[in-house]
């Protein structure tokens, strides 16, 4: 038996609301079977529009919250465990109490953060073979004295989870994710919070007031921090950089989309000035590695092209046939 909660979001709807509900799977089953059963249940909420539900236009996310439900004495059908989580989601919608005026990713992030706080085990992040190989290579290089890695990783490689994995392996207190492209931060926060390996991390947007308190509170409570730093040249940028780097905590700097804006000296130099033997740095880009690396003291480089992902895909397919 498993207690599941779900989120679905119809991108074709003008209301732009996410639906969050629960579903109790009363038979013995694996996690995958429970997810399948929950999706079948969600599908019943689209009477006569099943094809639309099956299309990519309806985004879906399912969680197994059995442990949390047990801790709340709500491990049974119709226990309304979703309503226990609902206040943490907030932003009530207009279509009923199960709807929230939130985008799909926003709702997922709020639920993940809530579950992580409650100690409900999240799903474990697994890496693709290529991600694992390259993460191993970089961790080895960093452990052997390299400090600045140039990572040219193609589209669909999964740079976000990969660089997050390297940060977890290096066990640093503060991971600074810097970019000129702001959508990078949403991508990091929403991707990482769903996985157990990142449950002990607090995500802090350096653009908000009170970021210092948030970071200090996290570190004081034995948590670690992902700090999202915009490289757009605002008046407070230097102050934020000083705060993040001028302290005794162990640190990693990840510069994402490093060939876009971040390769310019005005953006790179304030960070380069803070690099020393204690800071691990990953300069990450999909293309134009030479441009991305222009100002950085690169020690070593890793690179993965799209055809390599296909070579690996074929190898995996062949291995599964054996």
């Amino acid at each position, binding site marked *: 038996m498993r207690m599941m909660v779900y989120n679905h979001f119809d991108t074709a709807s003008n209301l732009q609301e996410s639906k969050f509900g629960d579903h109790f799977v009363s038979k013995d089953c694996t996690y995958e079977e429970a997810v399948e059963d929950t999706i079948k249940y969600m599908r019943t909420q689209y009477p006569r529009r099943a094809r639309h539900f099956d299309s990519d236009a309806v985004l879906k996310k399912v969680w197994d919250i059995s442990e949390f439900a047990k801790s709340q004495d709500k491990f049974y059908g119709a226990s309304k465990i979703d309503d226990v989580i609902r206040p943490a989601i907030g932003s009530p919608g207009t279509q009923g109490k199960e709807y929230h005026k939130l985008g799909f990713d926003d709702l997922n992030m709020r639920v993940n953060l809530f579950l992580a706080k409650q100690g409900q085990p999240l799903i474990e992040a697994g890496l693709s073979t290529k991600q694992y190989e390259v993460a191993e290579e970089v961790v080895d290089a960093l452990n052997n004295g390299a400090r600045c890695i140039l990572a040219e990783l193609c589209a669909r490689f999964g740079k976000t989870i990969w660089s997050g994995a390297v940060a977890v392996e290096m066990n640093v207190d503060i991971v600074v994710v810097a970019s000129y492209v702001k959508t990078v931060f949403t991508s990091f926060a929403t991707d990482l919070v769903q996985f157990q390996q990142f449950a002990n991390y607090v995500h802090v947007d350096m653009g908000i007031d009170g970021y210092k308190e948030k970071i200090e509170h996290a570190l004081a409570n034995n948590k670690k921090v992902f700090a999202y730093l915009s490289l757009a040249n605002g008046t407070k940028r230097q102050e934020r950089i000083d705060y993040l780097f001028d302290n005794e905590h162990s640190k990693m700097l990840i510069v994402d989309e490093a060939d876009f804006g971040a390769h310019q000296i005005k953006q790179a130099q304030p960070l380069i000035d803070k690099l020393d033997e204690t800071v691990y740095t990953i300069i990450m880009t999909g*293309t134009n590695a030479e441009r991305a690396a222009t100002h950085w003291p690169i020690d070593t480089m890793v690179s993965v092209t799209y055809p390599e992902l296909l*070579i690996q895909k074929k190898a995996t397919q062949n291995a599964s046939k054996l």
Partner: protein
Amino acid sequence: MLANFKVNVKRDLLAPDFACYQMDLMGPVNSAIAAGEVDEDFKTLPSWAKFAANPLKSKGFFTRALQGLFLGQGGHDELNVDLQAEIYSRDHARVAMMFMPANTRNDVLEIIGNIAQETLPGFEVVVLCGTIKHNGVKVNNRKAEGIVKSFVENGRPVLIIAAQMAQRSFSIPEITELYLAYDRGDNGATLQKMSRTLTPGKEGKVGRIFSLSFDPNRDDKFDAMVVETALNYKKRNAGKSLQEAMRDVLRTIDIWNCQPNGAIKVDIDSYLEYALARKGISRVLGKIVNINLLSAGAITALANGNSDYFRNDKQDKTQAGKTRDSATTKKSGVKKDHSVEKEIAKAREVITTIIENLDIIILGTGNKILKDAMEVVENDDAMRECVEEEFGVSTETISYLFKQDIIKQDWVEVMYDNAG
């Protein structure tokens, strides 16, 4: 071994397959010339740059090309995508994206969009540039994806036309055809553009990339991907030579040559031969040279043609791998930094020229071992003079680059063991 993460091989399977198609546009060009539909300039030497300068002057060519590609009309089966890719049916309406030359002006892109819409009335042609509004929404990079999604969801075939916009952070799973309608172009930007058809979609999705060229034998858009993959593959498969690595990679990437009777898979030896002839491989190698192996002094000397630097032992005292020291410690503002960037670019150019002309040394000395070949050159005054004249740099400079492993021995092997 990682302490906190395991491999999940299911993730290996998420990358959609892709296939590359080399298309020759001379069919519609010749038809348009015969019908008097293009101007003299385009007629003499057709190019995408000329088309993008004034699409109305060569409208006849473009409409014929679009009819061939999307409708299979006009007797240009070498462009008939359904025939070339053997697409007999589709499980959703066709969604294609076409990138025009990067410097195409917004007003010109709008004209191109209008021509495409007139030619393909069954399609929704969606032009992505800053001067256009779709359903009252002005297009920008952030909104482009949402705008296109709304067209795709309508269920009609869609042709997206862009130049600069939507190269990154633009994910439409339904895009299965990607057209590169420009000549040459930056390798990095081409890879970004190609990736727009690699967003995972329905199970079994194949992203098809079509390079539309007026001279396919000189078209090097796929070369960067092949060479860089081979170099990475070799790094992880230490026993293999670069040549073997390239052959392995070419066995995995499907590159098709489009012919009137259907596409023919490009044979590995011919590909290598043509890639070498068009200097595609040497150009890519020049682009990926690890300039970090050079000291700041060596970069300056290379960029400025200062051969004296390489003749004395000064360079040995400069720490390599700290290329940017002089730039990063100065607080001299943007002007100075641009000059550093320019110097690096210039040094890279010099190295690329050396790689492109290595045949003078390799074939001239009859020696494929770089260091040995340079010894022969340096000990022969006539040869030395000839090399310095051809390369525009001293033989000491070239020897230095070989000794520092900036230009690698195995690159020579792939270039000269394959030469036809």
